[in-house]
């Protein structure tokens, strides 16, 4: 946007005489501010525009002069001197840009400026004095033009100085509020996790939150009477199908290992984000609704060292390039071997203090993982002697809590703006 300083000469012809034409009088609060910050640059093209401005209507109507060109040389010089004196005196009196513009029209206006008319009348002058007179008048014209320009420049400089000094802003006053929304911290964290795995070639797959118990449990080797079911307290759906309670809120995203393998052939490399549910009392670290991301890679030649490498890249991406990871032994019915992964505590850096996050061990448990159980590979119709795979599951809330130092998992789904707008 242009500031009025530069715009006003261009709109001369439309402007009523009483329009404030002093470009330095602040017409709005925006323009000086922009000008002050240096956003607006003066352009030569716009300066040229001054010279071609139409005269103001008042100037146009003011006179119809006649001239006598028969005076001797000295008289000519005296007259030109008088004109110069008068013109420059009038310019000194000209008030503001409007006054300067009226002065310009009066003296230099293209149709009936006084000097313009004198120059136009040159052709009627006697040939012997025409050259001298023409020279003097043209010199006068140049003088008036440059004086006008000098006046304008100095007025502009004065105005800028005043804008910078007298009209300086209190920049500590509040900005004009803009409406700003944010993604939920769980969404942000999920997106970062997805990005990290997508870089390693993982595709996203999604499965249902309300799930068959045969997918949630039986297909991932957790039969009905197995104590491993205690690892997942289940919220069941109160609907009987064929007389049996068969559907539930998935307790983990792992049933999608089965769903993916049922639908595709190797190579498989997917991540499955989504909500999961546990029939669980809540406290600072337990919530009954949670968000997970499941990973699965199955192909010829997928090794546990690849699992470690993949999770290492993930950990560094999410928690910093200098992270270290360790695996330790764990048990999940659907993987063999099964591990948990921990990252070195980036909060206390294992300084042995009473760290709330790692409890002084220097390691923070992040996720469970392992090599896909060969029975699951076989059940998918793949040959387990040829194809191997790994799987992992990450709790997104846990990752988010670590990233931002959130102390209580129950904040996430209370939808309190005072919490949400911090991320």
């Amino acid at each position: 946007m242009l500031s009025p300083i530069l715009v006003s000469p261009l709109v001369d012809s439309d402007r009523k005489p009483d329009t404030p034409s002093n470009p330095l009088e602040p017409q709005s609060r925006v323009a000086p501010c922009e000008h002050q910050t240096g956003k607006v640059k003066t352009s030569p093209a716009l300066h040229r525009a001054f010279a071609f401005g139409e005269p103001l209507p008042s100037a146009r109507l003011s006179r119809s002069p006649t001239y006598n060109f028969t005076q001797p040389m000295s008289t000519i010089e005296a007259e030109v001197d008088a004109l110069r004196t008068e013109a420059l005196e009038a310019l000194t009196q000209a008030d503001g840009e409007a006054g300067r513009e009226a002065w310009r029209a009066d003296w230099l206006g293209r149709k009936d400026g006084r000097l313009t008319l004198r120059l136009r009348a040159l052709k009627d002058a006697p040939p012997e004095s025409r050259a001298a007179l023409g020279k003097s008048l043209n010199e006068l014209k140049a003088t008036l033009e440059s004086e006008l320009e000098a006046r304008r420049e100095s007025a502009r400089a004065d105005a800028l100085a005043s804008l910078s000094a007298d009209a300086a802003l209190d920049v500590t006053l509040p900005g004009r509020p803009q409406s700003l929304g944010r993604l939920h911290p769980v969404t942000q964290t999920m997106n970062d996790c997805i990005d990290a795995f997508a870089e390693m070639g993982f595709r996203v797959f999604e499965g249902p939150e309300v799930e068959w118990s045969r997918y949630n449990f039986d297909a991932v080797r957790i039969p009905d009477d197995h104590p491993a079911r205690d690892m997942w307290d289940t919220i069941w759906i109160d609907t009987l199908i064929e007389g049996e309670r068969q559907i539930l809120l998935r307790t983990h995203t792992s049933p999608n290992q089965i769903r993916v393998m049922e639908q595709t052939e190797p190579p498989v490399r997917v991540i499955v984000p989504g909500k999961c549910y546990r029939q669980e009392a809540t406290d600072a670290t337990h919530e009954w609704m949670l968000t997970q991301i499941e990973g699965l890679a199955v192909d010829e030649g997928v090794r546990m060292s690849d699992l470690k490498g993949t999770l290492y890249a993930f950990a560094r991406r999410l928690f910093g390039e200098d992270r270290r990871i360790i695996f330790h032994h764990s048990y999940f019915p659907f993987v063999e071997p099964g591990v948990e992964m921990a990252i070195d505590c980036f909060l206390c850096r294992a300084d042995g203090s009473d760290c709330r996050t790692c409890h002084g061990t220097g390691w923070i448990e992040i996720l469970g993982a392992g090599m896909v159980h060969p029975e699951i590979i076989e059940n998918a119709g793949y040959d387990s002697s040829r194809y191997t795979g790994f799987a992992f599951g990450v709790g997104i809330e846990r990752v988010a809590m670590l990233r931002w130092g959130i102390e209580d998992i129950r904040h996430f789904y209370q939808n309190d703006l005072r919490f949400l707008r911090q991320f």
Partner: protein
Amino acid sequence: MKLPLSWLRDYVDVELPPAEFAKRVTDAIAEVEGWEVIGEQWDPELVRVAEVLAVDPHPNADRLVLATVNVGDGPKTVVCGAPNVAAGQKVAFATEGAMLIDGHSGKLSKLKLRAIRGVDSAGMVLSEKELGLSDDHEGIIELPGDCAIGAPLVEAIGDVVFDVSTWANRADLLGIHGFAREVAAVTDQPLREPDRSWSESERSAGDFVSVTIEAPDLCRRFTASIIEGIEMGPSPPWMQQRLIRAGMRPINNVVDVTNYVMLETGQPLHAFDYDLVRGAEIRPRRARPGEKLTTLDGIERDLDPDMLMICDGEGPVAVAGIMGGGNSEVSESTKTVLLEVANFHPGSIRRTSTQLRLRSEASLRFEKGIGPDLARYAQDRALHLLEQVAGGRPAAGLVDAFPTPLPSPRITLPAARIEQVLGIPIEASEVRRILIALGFDVTETAGAFEVTPPFWRPDVALPDDVVEELIRIHGYENLPTTVLRGALPEAQPRPLERVREHARSLAAGLGFQEVVSYTLTSGEILSRVVASDDADRAAPLAATNPVASQHTYLRTSLRGSLLSAYAANRHHEDAAMRFFEVGVEYLPTEADLPHERPVLCAVLGGQRLERWERPGPERLDFFDAKGAVESLLSDLGVEGAFAAEGHHAMLPGHSATVSVGDEAVGVVAQVHPDVAASFDIEEPVFLIELWFEPLTRAIPERPDYAPPSRYPEARRDLALLVPADTPASALLDVIRTHRARGVRITADVFDEYRGEGVPAGQKSLALAVRFRADDRTLSEKDVVRVEQGLLRRLEQDLGATLRV
């Protein structure tokens, strides 16, 4: 599980400090959740083991005694108030300056000696409370007899008790000996065996009792031994101390031995009073309909025919593998004990304990799966201990019903499989070392290992199970990090998810805060926003066991969640609020999983913020909501059409259906003030809903593109009078479809006016109309002609007249 280090050291040497030990165990065996150091504050100089030499009355106080104790440097006299102090005991003795828990205040403080009732005391004989072992302040602690006189107490009974969480498939880790085996393998130390020797009397156990398994599918093995001549009483201090540290309460010597052996081996045992076993017979069988048994905890249990009972000649005497019955319990008068060590089907135990809501230390072990051979091992160990601590005389032999011993599985592990799974090979010598340390048999054949897991490891059945044993003991720190190789799978197009995620970030960009709400809600909240005749939504799925009653129903609409969030935040927010959530409606279907219908729902309302961050006079209104929808759709590459249409819970006349092409894709509306009020919202609040399934169908794969015109467009502002009920969209539709001389006409509404100067029943709409041709600059004459044609058409179709 509580794992006292002192007990573990019976079987394996452990020299590591607790933190290092915990890390090694967590890396390879099971998760150490924490540990407690016993005796940390006991000064080795000031708190020591003493022997009580004599106890004499206090000359000036009836309730005090003078005990003479020996701490290794001659007799000392101590004033003592404990009722149980007796000559010959080993006790804990503190001298001046020792840090002890004050018996009254419960705080750690320094012992100061003073004369009590005129007699000087050389020190103090301590209770458990003063040592910080328990709250017991009634009597002094009696130490195990083998404690050396004068030894620092911390050396005698100091300990570290680890809290360990083990796995659902590893009953063997719930035995301290089993755990020690793993520690030995990890630290490369030898494993010691507990003493299992016992002497037989002449009579054979078979003369006392017969065992007939009537349900061999549920009871895989039942061993019974008989111990005569039992002297019931408390178990010795060392045994009690260990039970307490492992988290169990001492009861009597016989029960304590069964618990001790269970803690040691992982095999549950049960002692019956032999004289209460009717008919001298034991019959493991299914319960009969209507049978009942009062278990040891005094509760009468209703039994059903899926449950395995231990019965005598007349009826149930125990719920197999879970808890004994009160009718056959050992007591002070017990003389002969029948000791059951059996093996049950894990799933059956779990089902029964779930049904009875009765979890016991025994059932927790049985349900994980125990090798049947462990029964004999545990019998031997228990008989050894009963002989020692209860004066028992075991009858010869065991009664052993073991209908079908299972052969040990043989697993062939190709050496190449190790590297195939792990990415690294493990040397044959290391493979042998690890497996042998864990009790496996292993032989090497060409390129493979023939492996037989030990009886206590029924969880190991496949080659990959063996691979896990190898890598966890070998150490996961030896596993390198490598990068996945091979081809990438083909990308599947996921248009809906793309639109959904795009909409999600656009909504945030448009100033809406994303929220995530619980997806289970209450029927009451749903009923505020869902029409009772909405077949898809009025009968939501319910949770059988919700975490709380307000989270019973799977939401069939997100509207209630958003309005609740709006209302809750209004308590602390003054100005305009905008929220959105992306989620699914769970719409029930017949005999299948529900349809999870993806939607975006948003609410907005309140006073716009002023420059000074105060709510200004202007409120958000319908057109803020609509503008957000327009921007969203525009960025998705489509244009929405808005048709006045009522929606449930929305204010009539302020509600529109959004559509794109032929698809209805959502709603924008003011929430009905009555509905808003039901959420305690007392201001106008507006709602947006976008349905991703039809929206995705309506979005073209590529947006239309036309190069920018090289010719300028002419603009005319027109004020048109139309009947008041004519929607602006009707004018725009006519203009958009008007064709004239290759001139494209587009138009926007920039004002609506009713009132002075406009006839009643009419309104004035101000339109910015733009004319453009693709092949020429339009002349003034062209524009006037096209404009005239357009005005005639508007007048014909809609009765619109130019306002003058």
